[in-house]
């Protein structure tokens, strides 16, 4: 058996952990740059605030209902997610982090009353981390996803649903539209609809051999999974990222080249830092720049730059990115967003280079290590590239950001005594 544990309104719940006054109240979290609503507490959903609504359009509504508004606080969410994961390890030695707010547990070999076990997971996570979760338990990942959905949508489940017999999962499948099945997107659902497959149950009963001709090979596995046969294994260790992207909207639209180059230099050195953390080198870099798609003359360009040798040197990566963005830049546009992608990665252990081509100088590697160590010890941005500029006017707007309660000494929660 597997369990899927999913945090309820994860980001909004994180904001309530050190603000007990906000529990049970409407809370929303905005995307990077305060553009859209990306998380809503139950109470905010009840007010009719939709997912991904532009902040400026609903700001008056939020104010009228006294909704607590937060900018994204990723240091906090990352730390809380890690705590959830560590707590879950007490329930199963095998935990797969599927996303920041969803984790699969392998319950293989356990003989438990599943509903009790699920409730124990819930109460422990609430007690230790103050994170409300839903728990779905089933023999396959696809069914566990389905169970999790039921745990949240059906009030009498009280946050836990175990699909441990075909009778139970078929009952649920008959009431579940096929597009809610894990791995079935809206487009595929439409095509299945033409074949008379409307519900998850229809799909579970369909003939995989026939369906395969109309769709793709993955549908066969989905059908097996819907019938309780696990096909997707638990990946204990998520594979190292094959690409590293650092993309952000500017706080204000930029027309001049210099601030754009400063921004891209910062994104490049952030990406390089991540690259070093996973012990890789990069061989080619993707750089892009664009205006808002709502602007009258939408302008969007990207380019791929080959590095002279595989590198993890922030200075080299930033200068390549800076050069590339100058090529992409055109005056007369109001640019909204830029990004750096490290797209061709090689493990550092394989990047020794051979005798005939120059590789990264050893001293560059040492310098980057020193840089990372200083920034780890004294806080991000203690040392940075001059190319990033000193006054970062183009920085993201985060007007409503809460303190990093768990990761910065100066931001610890205050307790009245």
């Amino acid at each position, binding site marked *: 058996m597997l369990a899927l544990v999913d945090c309820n309104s994860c980001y909004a719940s994180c904001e309530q952990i*050190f*603000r*007990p*006054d*906000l529990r049970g109240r409407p809370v929303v979290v905005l995307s990077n740059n305060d553009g859209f609503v990306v998380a809503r507490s139950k109470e905010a959903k009840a007010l009719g605030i939709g997912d991904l609504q532009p902040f400026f359009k609903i700001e008056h509504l939020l104010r009228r209902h006294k909704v607590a508004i937060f900018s994204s606080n990723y240091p906090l969410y990352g730390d809380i997610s*890690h*705590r*959830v994961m*560590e*707590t879950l390890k007490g329930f199963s030695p095998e935990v797969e982090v599927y996303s920041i707010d969803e984790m699969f547990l392998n319950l293989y070999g356990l003989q438990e009353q599943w509903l009790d076990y699920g409730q124990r997971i819930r109460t422990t996570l609430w*007690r*230790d*981390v*103050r994170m409300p979760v839903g728990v779905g338990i089933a023999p396959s990942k696809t069914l566990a996803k389905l169970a999790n959905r039921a745990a949240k949508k059906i009030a009498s489940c009280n946050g836990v649903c175990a699909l441990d017999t075909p009778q139970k999962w078929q009952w649920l499948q008959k009431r579940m539209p096929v597009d809610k099945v894990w791995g079935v997107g809206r487009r595929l659902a439409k095509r299945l609809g033409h074949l008379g497959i409307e519900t998850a149950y229809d799909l579970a009963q369909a003939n995989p051999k026939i369906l395969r001709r109309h769709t793709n090979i993955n549908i066969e596995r989905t059908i097996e999974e819907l019938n309780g046969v696990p096909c997707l294994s638990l990946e204990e260790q998520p594979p190292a990222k094959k690409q590293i992207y650092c993309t952000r909207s500017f706080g204000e639209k930029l027309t001049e080249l210099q601030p754009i180059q400063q921004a891209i230099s910062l994104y490049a050195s952030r990406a390089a830092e991540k690259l070093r953390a996973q012990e890789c080198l990069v061989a080619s870099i993707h750089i892009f720049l664009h205006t808002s798609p709502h602007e009258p003359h939408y302008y969007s360009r990207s380019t791929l730059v080959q590095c002279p040798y595989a590198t993890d040197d922030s200075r080299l990566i930033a200068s390549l990115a800076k050069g590339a963005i100058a090529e992409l830049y055109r005056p007369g546009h109001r640019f909204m967003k830029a990004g750096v992608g490290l797209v061709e990665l090689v493990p550092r*252990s*394989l990047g*020794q280079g051979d005798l005939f081509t120059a590789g990264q100088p050893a001293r560059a590697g040492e310098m980057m290590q020193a840089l990372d160590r200083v920034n780890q010890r004294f806080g991000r941005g203690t040392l940075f590239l001059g190319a990033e500029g000193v006054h970062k006017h183009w920085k993201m707007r985060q007007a409503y950001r809460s303190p990093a*309660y*768990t990761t910065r000494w100066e931001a*610890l*929660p*205050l*307790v*009245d*005594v």
Partner: protein
Amino acid sequence: MKLATLYSHGVAAGFPSPADDHKEKSLSLDQHLITHPAATFMARANGDSMQGLGIFDRDLLVVDRSLTPVHGDVVVVALDGQLTCKVLDRHHGRLLSANDRYPPIPVWEGQELIVEGVVKASIRYHRPR
């Protein structure tokens, strides 16, 4: 590639240090103060009502959520939505300060008292940071 790894192995030369056998991990305060890392958070004390127990303004509180609060524990509670540090008086259903200037706070029937965690330790700096 194989060749490269061969050469990159550190080759041990000379005698091993006789101290190697006696190596022990250095002491860590984390290990001493934090038994449940995932359930522990830190907070800053704000006020003087707990001075009698040696908790002064600006002291650091190490708070463990996973401990079951018992009578006499120093706890952090959510009182009217505010995080507050007091002594839990289970027997009389009230919260106590450790300073004569602050009377006990009764918890009325039906009022919900949420213990946010047990204060496992507090840290006092003897030289301003």
